[in-house]
């Protein structure tokens, strides 16, 4: 995290920052070290004049608050305050204890045993026991929904006693701990989980409860602190209000007028006397030119690695960062996020902008005259479409853009109609980051392209349940993907967050999962 020294730093519009916000909204995005949620850690002690209320904003109305409909996007700011999660990500993205005090895997990685801490209660007074999480996970497994993919490897769950949860897997799942620190790790109350009003009146064991009287669906969600929460000291705010402000100008107006205490600055300026400090957080979202048709099913040329490499050489990443995102972001040739353990700075030098080299590679591959592709123009790519189209045109690749309605965005990838697509992505742990993109049946691999060497690397990664052991394996995958130009990543944008005097924002690249725990009082 970089902190701008001047609170009055002029900030400019960042279209890629919009896309970064979109990433936060639309994708299972971030790992976070919600230290305040973790066992034993606390926020700074609030002084007598320290603020006791916090008002922040999200850009989209949260979805249902029942555990099968939870989203890992900005909605989590509300639900992660209401529900305890079994574990939470630490500062480095690795899991640390939360509702589960400890856990261990069996040697073959097929059994995960978690031990719940004592003394937790739901907001209705019921004690939190292992059977509650069993009911939560059973419902996730049996119901097709947005979280189905994250529990696909779970074969059964048991609760042999009140504090022990045993999860059995059909195959080792390296992403599972990362998932447990997000939506599927939320613990619902066994007795209320099936209530008809569960989506709007959630009962959790988290640090806050949703105030139904003060909450206005679609406008603001008011959370009241539970003094009987097991880690209450870690949360300095008695009341947290989450407002829904979709328009970026309105968001900044709310920040400037003090209606919200912390918020993203996407355009405009911060006044010198406003008392707002701008904090820049890198790794907010990847913009990736995905080369989907790597076997040349629709466009045979893309099966040739030289053509894919030529595309990478043709993209002037530095110019795009400066020109399109006003310098807010890192030019990258890899999908790993800056400031994370898997990121290898040197890999970005693999494809410097070199039009001559790109044209040579095209000629060597037999495509000196180029070829034509059709690409989807999605809501998150529209600002990059012209520059990417021009870069491809420079090496003879003619792009026809299909305008995709917002609700069909996912289908644009899934349908395997498009050989390439500009696609945003949020931060995820190593196994999920690479697994979601390159495994045979991954969402972002609609042509189901495989390569023996890559498959072996991905299998090693996918079956390594120890998060620390995943890092070197993920680096190997990262290097292989860059070398073979399976994609042409463009940039990884940064967020600029405005923070009012008295407040603090502690999020980083690996610690940005939307949570009240990321907000504190200034020391």
């Amino acid at each position: 995290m970089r902190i701008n020294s001047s609170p009055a730093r002029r900030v400019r519009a960042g279209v890629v920052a919009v896309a970064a916000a979109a990433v936060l909204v639309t994708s299972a995005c971030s790992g976070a070290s919600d230290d305040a949620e973790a066992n034993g850690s606390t926020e700074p002690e609030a002084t007598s004049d320290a603020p006791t209320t916090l008002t922040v904003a999200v850009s989209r109305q949260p979805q249902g608050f029942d555990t099968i409909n939870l989203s890992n996007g900005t909605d989590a700011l509300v639900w992660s305050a209401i529900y305890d999660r079994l574990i939470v990500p630490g500062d480095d993205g690795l899991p640390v204890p939360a509702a589960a005090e400890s856990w261990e895997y069996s040697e073959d990685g097929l059994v995960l045993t978690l031990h719940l801490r004592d003394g937790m209660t739901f907001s209705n007074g019921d004690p939190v026991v292992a059977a509650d999480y069993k009911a939560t996970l059973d419902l996730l497994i049996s119901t097709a929904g947005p979280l189905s993919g994250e529990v696909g490897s779970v074969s059964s769950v048991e609760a042999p006693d009140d504090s022990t949860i045993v999860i059995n897997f059909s195959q080792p799942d390296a992403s599972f701990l990362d998932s447990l620190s997000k939506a599927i790790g939320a613990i619902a109350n066994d007795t209320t989980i099936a209530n008809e009003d569960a989506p709007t009146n959630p009962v959790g064991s988290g640090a806050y409860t949703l105030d139904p009287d003060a909450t206005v669906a679609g406008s603001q969600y008011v959370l009241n602190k539970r003094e009987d929460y097991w880690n209450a000291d870690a949360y300095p705010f008695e009341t947290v209000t989450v407002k829904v402000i979709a328009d970026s100008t309105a968001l900044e107006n709310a920040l400037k007028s003090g209606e919200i205490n912390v918020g993203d600055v996407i355009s405009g300026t911060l006044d010198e006397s406003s008392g707002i400090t701008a904090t820049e957080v890198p790794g907010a979202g990847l913009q990736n030119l995905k080369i989907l048709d790597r076997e040349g099913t629709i466009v045979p040329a893309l099966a040739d690695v030289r053509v894919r490499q030529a595309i990478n050489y043709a993209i002037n990443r530095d110019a795009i960062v400066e020109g399109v995102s006003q310098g807010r972001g890192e030019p990258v040739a890899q999908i790993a996020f800056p400031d994370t353990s898997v990121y290898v700075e040197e890999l970005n030098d693999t494809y410097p902008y070199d039009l001559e080299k790109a044209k040579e590679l095209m000629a060597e591959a037999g495509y000196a005259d180029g070829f034509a592709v059709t690409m989807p123009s999605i809501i998150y790519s529209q600002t990059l479409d012209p520059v990417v189209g021009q870069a491809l045109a420079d090496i003879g690749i003619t792009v026809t853009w299909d305008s995709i309605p917002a609700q069909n965005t996912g289908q644009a990838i899934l349908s395997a109609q498009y050989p390439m697509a500009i696609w945003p992505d949020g931060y995820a742990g190593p196994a999920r980051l690479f697994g979601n993109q390159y495994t045979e049946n991954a969402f972002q691999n609609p042509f189901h392209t495989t390569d023996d060497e890559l498959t072996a690397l991905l299998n090693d990664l996918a079956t390594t349940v120890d998060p620390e052991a995943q890092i070197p394996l993920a680096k190997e995958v990262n290097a292989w993907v860059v070398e073979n130009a399976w994609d042409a990543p463009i940039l990884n944008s940064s967020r600029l967050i405005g923070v009012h005097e008295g407040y603090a924002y502690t999020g980083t690249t690996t610690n940005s999962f939307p949570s009240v725990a990321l907000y504190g009082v200034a020391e």
Partner: protein
Amino acid sequence: MLLYSARRLLAGFVLFVIVAFITYWLLSFSFDSVIAARLGASATPETIAEVRADYGLDRPVVVQYVDWLAGVFQGDLGRSFYTQEPVIDAIPPRLFVTLSIVVPALIIATIIAVFLGTFAASRGGGADKAAQGVMLFGYLVPNLLIAILLTVVLAINLGWLPATGYVRFGDDPAGWLKSITIPVIALFIGGAANIANQVRGTMIDELRKDYVRTLRTRGVSARTVVYKHALRNAAGPALTVFGLTFINMFGGALIIEQVFALPGFGTFSFNSALQGDFPVLMGLTVFGVGMTVTINLLTDLANGWLNPKARIYA
């Protein structure tokens, strides 16, 4: 009048059934896309088919529609595909938010428009030109610009009014008034110009008519001639514009709602359309058609009340 109203309502109902079916039919083409978007990375042909079956979307479209229509008559519009809120509960509060800004804006616009239009028509000359200049200004200045300007001055610089958000009337009436003030100002200006122009035009026509000359020769005061006789006769066309302005303001409220982060009908419709939230979109169709039919009926009835010659009912 009752028979006429009943006939109009019946025609409105038939219109609703047809419009709702067309909407449902068109939405049915994107069911798979919407489900895939909702499922995100969990979307596979199997999970998409499972969710389709859960929502009964694997049946013929006509069967689904009839099923939905039967639910409407029982007050069940389903649940939002995204937020899981019952649609019947989700729409009225949002409608109230939008009406909170549209109705005051329309009332203010009408009062200003009647005085401005009448003033321009009855005075003529320089006063008319000045009034037309004001109307032109109201037409040309985008309400978004006014909204931004007022926000910067009144909310950010002076701190008198909130820059964003909506306060429910029941929670804090003064807060509610503050929260709608800038949106209402931004919204009424264009509407006032629109209605005023219509009032001016029809008033000029009326004031040239023989009965006006007769009234004047009998010594009836100018004020009575203008406001009691001519204005009443000029109200018909203006009323039509009034109805259209209401519908336009309802549409224009979307931008205002976005700029001020108001959880209104427009924002809700816009977001639901972006997400393809079909249960909500169908619910919005119910309310939208119902409102349009009602407004048109009320406009016709008011028109007849004001001008017996314009009565198209027995």
